[in-house]
């Protein structure tokens, strides 16, 4: 259990730190960096406690089930490979935090910076100690997001935003491919557990899906690790603050792809396909990156391309599928992390102290900033692979491996190309150190300002450089055991015997190395001429190509969208209706008799009259839809007949609801029509009307036919019996419909009142903002066009409505109280109460009524929903599940025995929400109309006076 806790704490620490920093965003820079540093240091201590056993061969792991149905477990495990990476992430993380503390200005958003940085650290740690493929993917995506935030930290800079977007697009896109590849891998291997997958390499490589999953996984790795041709995002990511570049874009995140290649080495490596792709991509990237780095001028850009090149070398080594090459890769990961992070920080120092990163403006800085010069020169020498530094040893190992593989069948090709890459590397490393620190200053201004920073700023790179030196002087002591263990972890086999040393005698690797150094020196000597040639050659600009391809995709996606999804409601509705009609016709093909066998109810003559009224009213609505006021009368006839239908067929609750909704709807339409055009011209052409008419008739016949087929058949077994049997005994009410609403299916009702509340608030939002802009101008220009009585608020109506108000409210309360046992309930009572108040608005006008309003409709909606939810949650207090109701019988003197049910409280919530939503919609609408009328009246009197 202790191990499990350690692992969990290890991953959780950075996230906790991120949260703490984000919450304390108003604190000072020192607080932020202290939290981040403490988290990194704490992580290092935990890691150190695990280091001994892990190198000794143990693999601590811990598993918690997370989503077992998906095979997603929270499995953490730490093997030597994970240990090395975790050490880099935490160790360099700590140094970067210290460096960033001095690099960032105190008035920058350091809270956001360190929170993002810690988020990244946690995600990256997650990748390297995840023991489950799906978990790894989660962390993988998280690093892309954190990187996006960090690159775009200086939000006000366009290149930061563009760089962040590009990095996210490329690594995120690769991440998508990776998800596909990893899921396929898990399915082929039969498990998402990494340890299990690693043991099933043979099964995976033999699977017909192997090429697909390999391609997808490699796509993910190559985009993340900036391999050619996906490298272009990395130089643009340099828009990030330098500590971020030092951390993410040299030591950690870009190595995630390399890490994953190493992690899956036993499963994926060894096939011809793997070796071919990975080796050639790595080799191309190595040479290409090194070549471009030679001709860059921005310090960080040089370092970015050099990182691309070095990552290419690592990928190539893993691509060899040789255990000794894996050893070289493991050692070089350590070396590269040390010298590259030191170089990035040095670049940051130079920029910080001189105000520029342009190498063409700098020079001779060794005199002005000797400490920085010493650090950076040593680190660059390690990067160049010069003895006696760490970089020399890993480059020797790399060159030693190259003759073992015959590229294109030519045994000399790979050594030659690798040497070419190494030559370029020496070239740009020498140029970086040489042009920056030796010679004469090229411009006076930056040089005049230059001086060594305080200890705090150079301490971190100095420590890293010391490591880079020691990795060359005492490699076996410092890195021997770790490298061996890591190699064993990568290959899944005992590490080959090896000896890390500067001198292995005169061999091919040494000769190649010497050639590279000599060639590099030559490049530096001839740099001016080469640069001129490079600049004459017109080379494709990756950024422009990226943007062009995005613009291209954007254009065609838009075209495709418009082609499929016409922005015309009419056409979309036509298509939807047509599809539904076709589906129904298709369903009818299944056969069966049209008329069922249920005995039918003979209709009364009255029913026939009501039916005829409905048909006639519907026809009138369709035929006369241009005369909008008359249409409202027809609509209300239909609503009335529908209510009568409910009355006739044993649904008193529905009848009450329908009739009150009808009143409210007609009021709403009247108010809206007041502002809408009343008698618009005809728009549709005759053929279109015929087409729509045919579709409408077909739809009507089909739906009517289905209704007929349903009505003439007996229903299947219904769950109604349960509700009927338990309404009184379980729900405490005899009105089964109401008991269903507030008890059996109360969760549905809760959802529905929330929807209604949202509709009410949406209406408010739509209308509240009409005072300004084009809508406001139109409203002000509105003039009343309906003839109305000279007396706006007839006295008789006002007087009558005030008497009716308490009466109607009494009815509403009565309907509400009896709702549990007799037709009524919260919905109906709310509608009746709303009508009572709306009558006041009608009779006495908006202003009079609004002044007397005590509670806002927003509060009513909110309290309604909260009451209903609180009732439901209250059930938890009694150990029941959500919305369980209870009831009891009480007796009071005078009143006698009565029943109280908790469902009543729920129904109160329903009442409040429905009442609030209805009132909000109508009151807001009349408010707009009143405002428009007032504005017009004011303008009118003004105009008349003039």
């Amino acid at each position, binding site marked *: 259990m202790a191990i499990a806790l350690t692992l969990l704490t290890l991953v959780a620490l950075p996230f906790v730190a991120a949260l703490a920093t984000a919450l304390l965003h108003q604190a000072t820079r020192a607080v932020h960096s202290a939290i981040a540093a403490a988290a990194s240091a704490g992580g290092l201590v935990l890691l150190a406690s695990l280091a001994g056993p892990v190198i000794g061969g143990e693999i601590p792991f811990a598993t918690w089930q997370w989503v077992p149905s998906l095979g997603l477990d929270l499995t953490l495990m730490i093997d030597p490979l994970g240990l090395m990476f975790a050490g880099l992430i935490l160790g360099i993380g700590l140094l970067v935090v210290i460096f960033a503390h001095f690099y960032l200005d105190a008035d920058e958003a350091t809270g956001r910076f360190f929170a993002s940085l810690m988020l990244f650290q946690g995600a990256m740690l997650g990748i390297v100690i995840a023991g489950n493929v799906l978990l790894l993917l989660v962390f993988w995506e998280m690093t892309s997001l954190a990187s996006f935030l960090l690159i775009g930290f200086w939000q006000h800079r366009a290149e930061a935003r563009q760089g962040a977007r590009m990095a996210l697009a490329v690594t995120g896109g690769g991440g998508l491919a990776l998800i596909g590849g990893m899921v396929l891998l898990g399915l082929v291997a039969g498990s998402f557990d990494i340890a299990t997958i690693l043991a099933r390499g043979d099964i995976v490589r033999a699977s017909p899906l192997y090429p697909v999953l390999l391609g997808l996984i490699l796509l993910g790795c190559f985009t993340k690790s900036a391999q050619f041709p996906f490298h272009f995002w990395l130089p643009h990511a340099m828009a990030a603050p330098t500590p971020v570049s030092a951390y993410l874009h040299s030591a950690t995140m870009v190595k995630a792809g390399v890490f994953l290649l190493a992690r899956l080495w036993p499963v994926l490596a060894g096939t011809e396909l793997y070796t071919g792709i990975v080796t050639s991509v790595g080799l191309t990237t190595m040479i290409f990156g090194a070549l471009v780095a030679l001709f860059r001028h921005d310090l960080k850009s040089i370092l970015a391309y050099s990182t691309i090149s070095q990552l290419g070398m690592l990928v190539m080594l893993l691509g060899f599928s040789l255990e000794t090459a894996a050893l070289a890769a493991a050692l070089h990961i350590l070396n590269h992390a040390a010298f590259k992070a030191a170089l990035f920080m040095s670049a940051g120092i130079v920029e910080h102290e001189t105000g520029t990163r342009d190498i063409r403006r700098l020079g001779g800085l060794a005199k002005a900033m000797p400490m920085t010069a010493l650090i950076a020169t040593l680190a660059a020498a390690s990067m160049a692979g010069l003895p006696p530094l760490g970089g020399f040893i890993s480059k020797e190992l790399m060159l030693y491996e190259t003759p073992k593989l015959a590229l294109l069948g030519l045994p000399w090709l790979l050594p030659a190309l690798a040497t070419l890459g190494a030559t370029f590397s020496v070239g740009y490393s020498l140029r970086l150190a040489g042009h920056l620190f030796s010679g004469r200053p090229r411009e006076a201004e930056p040089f005049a300002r230059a001086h060594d920073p305080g200890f705090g700023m150079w301490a971190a790179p100095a420590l890293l450089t010391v490591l880079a030196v020691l990795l060359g002087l005492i490699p076996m002591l410092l890195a021997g055991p770790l490298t061996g263990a890591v190699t064993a972890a990568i290959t899944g086999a005992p590490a080959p015997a090896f000896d890390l040393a500067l001198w292995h005698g005169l061999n091919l690797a040494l000769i190649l190395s010497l050639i590279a150094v000599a060639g590099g020196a030559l490049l530096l000597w001839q740099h001016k001429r080469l640069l001129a040639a490079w600049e004459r050659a017109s080379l494709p600009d990756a950024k422009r190509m990226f943007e062009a391809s995005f613009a291209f995709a954007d254009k065609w996606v838009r075209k495709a969208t418009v082609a499929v999804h016409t922005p015309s*409601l009419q056409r979309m509705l036509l298509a939807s209706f047509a599809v539904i009609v076709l589906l129904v016709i298709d369903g009818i093909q299944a056969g069966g008799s049209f008329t069922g066998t249920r005995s039918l109810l003979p209709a009364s003559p009255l029913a026939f009259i009501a039916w005829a009224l409905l048909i006639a009213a519907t026809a009138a609505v369709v035929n006369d839809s241009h005369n909008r006021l008359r249409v409202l009368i027809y609509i209300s006839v*239909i609503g009335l007949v529908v209510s009568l239908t409910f009355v006739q*067929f044993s649904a008193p609750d529905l009848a009450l609801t329908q009739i009150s909704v009808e009143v*409210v709807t007609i009021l709403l339409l009247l108010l809206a029509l007041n502002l809408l*055009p009343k008698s618009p011209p005809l728009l549709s052409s005759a053929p279109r009307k015929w087409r729509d008419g045919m579709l*409408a008739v077909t739809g009507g016949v089909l739906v009517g036919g289905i209704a007929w087929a349903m*009505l003439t058949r007996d229903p299947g077994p219904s769950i109604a019996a349960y*509700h009927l049997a338990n309404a009184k005994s379980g729900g405490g009410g005899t009105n089964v419909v109401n008991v269903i609403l507030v008890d059996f299916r109360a969760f549905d009702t809760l959802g529905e009142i929330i929807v209604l509340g949202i509709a009410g608030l949406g209406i408010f939002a*739509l209308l509240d903002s009409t005072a300004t802009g084009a809508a406001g101008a139109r409203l002000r220009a*509105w003039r009343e066009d309906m003839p109305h009585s000279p007396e706006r608020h007839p006295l008789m109506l006002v007087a009558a409505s005030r008497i009716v108000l308490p009466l109607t409210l009494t009815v509403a309360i009565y309907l509400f109280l009896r709702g549990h046992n007799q037709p009524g309930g919260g919905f109906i009572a709310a509608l009746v109460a709303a009508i009572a108040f709306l009558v006041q608005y009608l009779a006495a006008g908006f202003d009079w009524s609004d002044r007397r309003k005590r509670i806002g409709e927003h509060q009513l909606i909110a309290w309604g929903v909260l009451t209903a939810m609180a009732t439901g949650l209250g059930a938890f207090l009694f150990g029941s599940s959500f919305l369980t109701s209870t009831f009891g019988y009480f007796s009071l003197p005078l009143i006698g025995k009565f029943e109280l049910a908790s469902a009543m409280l729920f129904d109160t919530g329903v009442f409040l929400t429905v009442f609030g939503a209805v009132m909000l919609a109508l009151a807001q609408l009349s408010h707009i109309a009143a405002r428009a009328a007032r504005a017009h009246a004011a303008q009118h009197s003004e105009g008349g006076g003039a």
Partner: protein
Amino acid sequence: MSYEFLLATAIGVLVAGGIFLALRARTFQVVLGLTLISYAVNLFLFASGRLVVGRPPIWDKSVSAYTDPLPQALVLTAIVITFGMTAFVVILSLRSFLETGSDHVDGDKVPCDAQDGLADRRADDHEDTRA
């Protein structure tokens, strides 16, 4: 003539009218179409409990047979939600009219009737120049 026949034909007629109106070009007609379709849908849902006369689902010791209460409960909330939807669509069309000066569903410019209360853009300009 049976009740079932009357209800089924009424539903069919409502759907036909609703579809036709929903396909028209002006927002108010579309609102009317949706209203008709809503009536039809509510009636259809209700009808899925079959037609039963005189047996409301009010529990009583002495009564043994009731109509199915479940479709009724569904339709009751559906009626209220229908109001919410209608209100929202009406206000949406009103807002879009105020915003664009057109009550065409796709916001197309249509000739505005001189009888209408809301003048088109030209009237606004006129007001502005006068002010």
